[in-house]
């Protein structure tokens, strides 16, 4: 059958998400071999397994085969189905890990996706839910994905290692994406932020805000950093604090930076002042990189550009992140409009 010759083959577990997401979007089966084959602990990790389970949930009729050691994965994508779902994400990675892929898939479902994700909302590895909400959602809106049902809500905040956060994400279905012309980033007109603290003193957040402002105020007066202190059941299972900053330009592009405290019991304790300052610097770095899309969302923007109609879309990006580069590689492998970048 034609489908067999048609399947893709990779080795190594890196970029598993892109590979699976693009395979789902292109409908081509994918085979990934040698997943951590040389590792002491070979095979798929928990968070990857959870991701595959999530994919299985949002699709209909997918076939997933994993060998005994978990080093080989065969994934035959089904139909993107959507609907109301719930998923318990692994606490090894943040919800952002899962959400990033869902953002790519959600507009192409059969039924509008409404999903509750549980796990770690903010961690040091993945883009946090706050940042995605502040940057990825406006980006998707540029593509014509909007409406009342398009929302991302942090119901509970959960920090590693315990997790216990909860996020609600809903996205309408759009078969046709609008082409975008983002070639002028404009000037940054305001900076907003969110300093959160859970299961620590609420004063922490204020200290973060002060230190971050001390740096950013040199550039712009219009800065407002919200403090978000969640209590009780909404505060998850582990203590922690952090800051996410978003700079908005006159042309409606968003650049972001974030930093979170070390998880409980790992690494040295972090001073909130340091964290605030470092995060502000990270934002400046991001501004320095420039572009109409910030570095975490580059791949999302490019992917949606390829998935749109045959119209020319333009976007100005800063230096490509490795993640983006490899997404593009995988995209080409999947026979999506290659050469998107080289206009």
């Amino acid at each position, binding site marked *: 059958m034609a489908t067999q010759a048609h399947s893709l083959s990779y080795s190594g577990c890196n970029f598993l998400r892109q590979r699976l997401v693009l395979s789902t979007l292109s409908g081509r089966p994918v085979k990934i071999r*040698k997943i951590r084959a040389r590792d002491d602990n070979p095979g798929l990790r928990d968070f990857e397994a959870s991701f595959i389970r999530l994919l299985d949930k949002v699709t209909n009729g997918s076939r997933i085969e994993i060998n005994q050691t978990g080093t080989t994965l065969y994934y035959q994508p089904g139909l993107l189905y959507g609907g109301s779902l719930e998923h318990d994400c692994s606490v090894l990675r943040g919800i952002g890990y899962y959400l990033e892929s869902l953002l790519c898939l959600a507009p192409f479902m059969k039924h509008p996706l409404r999903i509750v994700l549980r796990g770690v909302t903010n961690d040091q590895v993945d883009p946090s839910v706050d940042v995605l909400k502040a940057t990825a959602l406006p980006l998707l809106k540029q593509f014509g994905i909007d409406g009342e049902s398009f929302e991302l809500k942090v119901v509970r905040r959960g920090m590693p290692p315990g997790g216990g956060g909860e996020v609600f994400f809903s996205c309408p279905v759009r078969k046709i994406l609008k082409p975008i012309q983002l070639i002028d980033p404009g000037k940054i007109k305001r900076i907003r932020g969110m300093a959160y603290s859970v299961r620590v003193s609420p004063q922490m957040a204020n200290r973060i805000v002060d230190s971050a402002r001390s740096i950013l105020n040199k550039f712009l007066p219009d800065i407002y950093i919200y403090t978000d202190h969640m209590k009780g059941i909404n505060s998850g299972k582990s203590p922690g604090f952090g800051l996410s900053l978003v700079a908005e330009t006159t042309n409606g592009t968003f650049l972001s930076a974030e930093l979170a405290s070390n998880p409980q019991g790992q690494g040295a304790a972090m001073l909130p002042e340091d964290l605030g300052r470092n995060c502000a*610097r990270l934002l400046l770095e991001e501004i320095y990189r420039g572009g109409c899309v910030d570095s975490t969302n580059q791949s999302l923007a490019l992917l949606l550009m390829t998935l749109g109609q045959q119209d020319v879309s333009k976007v100005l990006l800063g230096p490509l992140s490795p993640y983006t580069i490899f997404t593009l590689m995988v995209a080409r492998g999947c026979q999506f409009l290659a050469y998107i970048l080289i206009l």
Partner: protein
Amino acid sequence: METKDQKKHRKKNSGPKAEKKKKRHLQDLQLGDEEDARKRNPKAFAVQSAVRMARSFHRTQDLKTKKHHIPVVDRTPLEPPPIVVVVMGPPKVGKSTLIQCLIRNFTRQKLTEIRGPVTIVSGKKRRLTIIECGCDINMMIDLAKVADLVLMLIDASFGFEMETFEFLNICQVHGFPKIMGVLTHLDSFKHNKQLKKTKKRLKHRFWTEVYPGAKLFYLSGMVHGEYQNQEIHNLGRFITVMKFRPLTWQTSHPYILADRMEDLTNPEDIRTNNKCDRKVSLYGYLRGAHLKNKSQVHIPGVGDFAVSDVSFLPDPCALPEQQKKRCLNEKEKLVYAPLSGVGGVLYDKDAVYVDLGGSHGFQESEEVRPTHELVQSLISTHSTIDAKMASSRVTLFTDSKPLGSEDIDNQGQWMPKEEKQVDLKTGRVRRKAIFGDEEEDESGDSDDEDDEMSEGDRLENSCSDDETEEGPDAEVTDKQYMSRKGIKRQKLEMEEDFEVDLPAFADSDDDLERSSVEEEAEEADESSEEEDSTAEEERDILESKAVREGGKPELLQTDDSSDSLNMEKSLTRKKATFTTSDSGHCTAEEAFASEDEPEGNSSLSTEEEDSENEEAIRKKFPKPQVVSSQKLGSGNLIDETSDIEDLLKEEEDYKEENNYSTETSGALKWKEDLSRKAAEAFLRQQQITPNLRKLIYGTVTEDNEEEDGDNGEELGGLFRVSQPASECKHKADSLDCSRFHVEAPHDWDLEEVMNSIRDCFVTGKWEEDKDAAKILAEDEELYGDFEDLETGDVHKGKPGPDTQIEDVEEEIKEEIDPSAEESAKKKHLEKKRKLKEMFDAEYDEGESTYFDDLKGEMQKQAQLNRAEFEDQDDEARVQYEGFRPGMYVRIEIENVPCEFVLNFDPHYPIILGGLGNSEGNVGYVQMRLKKHRWYKKILKFQTIPLYYIEDHNGRQRLLKYTPQHMHCGATFWGPITPQGTGFLAVQSVSGNMPDFRIAATGVVLDLDKSIKIVKKLKLTGFPYKIFKNTSFIKGMFNSALEVAKFEGAVIRTVSGIRGQIKKALRAPEGAFRATFEDKLLMSDIVFMRTWYPVSVPAFYNPVTSLLKPIGEKDTWSGMRTTGQLRLAHGIKLKANKDSLYKPIVRQKKHFNSLHIPKALQKALPFKSKPKTQAKAGKTPKDRVRPAVIREPHERKILALLDALSTVHSEKMKKAKEQRHLHNKEHFKMKQKEEEEKLKRQKDLRKKLYRIQGQKERRNQKSSLKGPEEQLK
């Protein structure tokens, strides 16, 4: 007196003249003209009812909006592909004749035999691809999908035929292409009236099928076996001016109607295995959407394939160049039909072939064939040549022919196998030629050897050569090289390509490079025509090498700051981190920056740069570049991640190239060496195209090759991309995270660093055209004086710098050069435009609707799409946007079944349909289906789809048969097709179906993979013990476990008593206790209704009709029904006896007598008591009276008495009648008398009363008179 008789003039009261007069009269009276009743009588037109007004307004608005279509981006290519005209009709209706006539009409050429599509230029802007469609249903289905226009031929003398309607229905399913009916055989009508009638009848029937008013063309008759010229001309005009509606399916998929097919398989493979999978190339115009390389295509009748390569060729049937004249000249009237052998020159990707048909070709082939055959025979043995020789000798001796012995004397090598195939007469000649070849083979390559020979040599020698060379080789069998030299050169160049060390990313640019090298080589070739091939090759290589090496130094020379370039070079070579202490580098960078941006501003804003840069890629990455210069300028130590470095590196390299280009163009030194210059240009192109593409897609090849083995060396060269590649390999199992961590953060406390991004904020410096102060000033200029009404201040617009300049210019207008004048004009225009914009914004705002905005947006996008690739050449363009419709493309496909090539029939269309993203997959497809109303039977369960109907509770219940006149659901395992696509079902595609062949039509609804179709299942059981409402039931299940599964389920008896399953019983296995709402009878049958899921069989068998042998292509049959199988195998169906019909025999019903209990009997009244009296028995013998036997005499007496009595009775009867009559008359008389008597009495009484009355009156009178008289 005479004048009096004349008629008086009558004024005219009607007609135009009278009206005019009336009007004038009214105007004189100042009553206004009649038409303006609204003005004259405004009350009559006033709003009478607001509701009605609103309603009418709504209605008009509704009608208006209904006309709107959702605006879509216009994607029609600038040069559209030829329009597909399908000429369809039943056999013997005149299709081929029509095509011939049409071709002759457009091109003045006559095609005797038409096979496959014929492309012709029909006008300045239109080309047509005409193809004939027979009545094979496969062909009809395939062509209906690709047709733009259908010419539907109808035999008027016969009327409509089934094929016509079938085709119309097929068209309907796939979106209706334009359909034009053509009536032929109109000359067979004798009477004009009948003809007219027939025309009308056919026209109306046609209209009901297509749409009312559909064009029906009449071809009145034949002249010398052809249609009349004038009519054909008219038809041609109709076709050329016809407009087409885009069809959804066609515009969303790329498709090709192939007009040429070549087998590219390695002949060696075919030799070893005749049935091996083939590699073919198909040619045709791309239509519909853009086609990407390496995508999947479906070839109806063959199957799904992955395209191994696509390339575009020069248009074989190009539209004429734009000229201002009305019609085409003869040269431009092209016709292209390779399958029919027209358009003799064939342009392949890398060669040009001339098909020498006709008398010449025949002779030549006669001569040539033997050599070829021998070569074939040499190859076709599976052993080595030595072994072959040995064996052949032996076999020859056994063969021993008189002429053959000569050959043996001449030559030791012989092919007996072949000889058997070859017939005797020609065989001899052939052999001779072969042996000549053999000699030449030994002598070596020389230029004057036979064409075919060289081919043969190559086949023998270079089997392991590059596969691209196999193309021409394979085609040699029936074609001759036109430009043998060209091809040879090509080949050499390709070899050279491999030898010359290419830059790292050359693999993707092979074609580009090749073409340019070819050019270069061509120049060289002209000069050295006589040189032998090997020398030529060497020279070429040397030259190119020289170019390659020479290019660099030259370029270096041109640069004013060569040391800085060197620095850069070293940067690119090594993967070093930037240490920016080197001031030289810094200056170089700045120099570049200043070159790029005249303003030399170092802000992060990118608008100026954008305008400067030519390549879009540059547009995308201006920032890092600027950043780098800043970085260097600030003198900080920078250590970015390797990827960024790569980017920067690419960027720099690009810049470098840019520099070269600007500088070399200015230099005159190299003008003398043109070839070098060309080479340089080529090199430049080579090095510009890499950069980001190389970074991203260069490594992906690595990634794919990873499995085969590490071949990073291949990509070596200028850019060491192997580095990131190996890194990626290293990182194969690394953390998967989208965050882009900053490896070397800046020190944001430093003022310089802070300044570098200060302009990114609104508080920073703005660009010239966006600075608020500047804009304000400009506005002021524009509007000049204005008065603030509130304050009463009067602002005087001071003459701005522009106007001042203008004034000055006006003064010295004579002296200034035209450029200044132009600029002034431009400024003026600009000003005007701005004013106009302002005006538009002010006044047109209200009118532009949402719809208009949307349309405008789409138009803008379309313009953008066009503009983006407008100035790029096709080679580059196809890489970005894919092959665009309208191109003539060549598609290579591998692993095609050999039958496709062996049984190739040009009469059957080969269509390549591009598949969308997931359309190549196979899955469950749900459809809404309806049996076609003209299909005689209903569809049964023995078809591929399973039919179902949705119950009100959402359950999808299996149907055994399709409903007669209703839609039903259907699902099957098949190719994933987008929702909303129409589909068509036929019972069988083989051509021997008598009736209407289309069984069902419908539409794809869903692609759900988890559909659940259920089937009703009734389980029956019998009570074996009955209590009050509880019964024990057996026979429904087989085990207690089964019962347990159905506990609580609802059951029912046939008579309607409902119940429930309670619990399994121990005793008979599978029995259970159940309760009912009433007591059961032993004769009751208990049943339970359940639903059993039905699995859709995952069986998908695409039609492979094109693989059938020629002439049997319409006999493909997918599956046989069990009935057909049974018939074929002679298996008789064993009928279930219970299902047979038997005569109904009713048994006589016996009723028992009524039995009344004794007690009841006693209590009954006598009347109701059963009477116990026995029936009167037989009269005893003694009571029976004996019969009387009379004597003859007595008998006589009796007879007489009888007679007498008869007479008597008759008499009596008569008398009675008479009496009766008499009585009647008497009665009448009496009545009469009575009446008269009454009358008399009445008269008498009347008389009496009158007299009485008179008397009374008299009395009264007298009594009245009395007192009067008394008074008197």
